[in-house]
């Protein structure tokens, strides 16, 4: 991404510099699991970061869905549920 400042004013919205967006994208990139990004840590294309962010969020969301299914099955099966939950809470 080239670092050009926005020259035109937008009506109603505050002007946001390109550098700010770059910083945000870099921050986002730091959160992502570093699978293939280690090689070119110097320059990361924003497009690729955003793409990986999208797929990462989808993966996490799917993981939460699977876990919630598993939890619902576990909650159904355990009869002495309340004791288990209290115990698990106290053990943490």
């Amino acid at each position, binding site marked *: 991404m080239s670092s050009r400042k926005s020259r035109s004013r937008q009506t109603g919205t505050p002007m946001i510099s390109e550098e700010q967006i770059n910083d945000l994208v870099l921050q986002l990139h730091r959160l992502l699991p570093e699978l293939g990004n280690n090689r070119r840590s110097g320059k990361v294309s*924003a497009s690729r970061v955003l793409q990986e962010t999208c797929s990462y969020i989808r993966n996490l969301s799917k993981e939460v869905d699977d*876990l919630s299914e598993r939890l619902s099955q576990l909650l159904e099966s355990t009869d002495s549920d309340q004791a288990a939950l209290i115990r698990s809470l106290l053990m943490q």
Partner: protein
Amino acid sequence: MASLISDTEPPTTSTTTDLVRRKKKRSSVSSAASSRTSAASVSCESHTRWRSEKQQRIYSAKLIQALQQVRLNNSSAEATSSPTAQKRGRAVREAADRALAVSARGRTLWSRAILANRIKLKFRKQKRPRATTAIPVTTTVVSSSNRSRKRRVSVLRLNKKSIPSVNRKVRVLGRLVPGCGKQSVPVILEEATDYIQALEMQVRAMNSLAQLLSSYGSAPPPI
């Protein structure tokens, strides 16, 4: 018990506290947790916020209460309709998301959107199926991104912000994060960073909870 919430989170919106109070039926469980978590001070830094042990403990406590509520609802509703496995899983997912949004203490857009969606659904008496209006599911993202490509061209000319492909991807990302469909680019990016960390914590908490429950089911837990 309301003491847990009043210690750990000031009521930012009345709707938040109403939702939380409805979950608070088991006071014995929450009082045990409140003594430990009431001293927890959530740091303002977004990077450490979702990764601290205290935050995970707060979330786990809320999650367990929400899950107990779900279990109550399921046991009471079983006489009328037989809940399928998918519905049960979705109910758990929504309870977990609600607990996560409450743990965010109203500071982020996505948490407010999650909580607002629940209230809207309760008032609307579920005219529409929940999947389309609640948490964005991947299928809806795929179908709507094709539509939006034609719409977003006009937005690009107004903004003159950056390369169209980047802007398009930011829009897609904005639809993945709840409540950020029509926000500006930096807002979407900021919300996404917080949302990712919150999701990671949610995964960790639910994982450990599932492990505890499954281990309890098979053998008594080691002390």
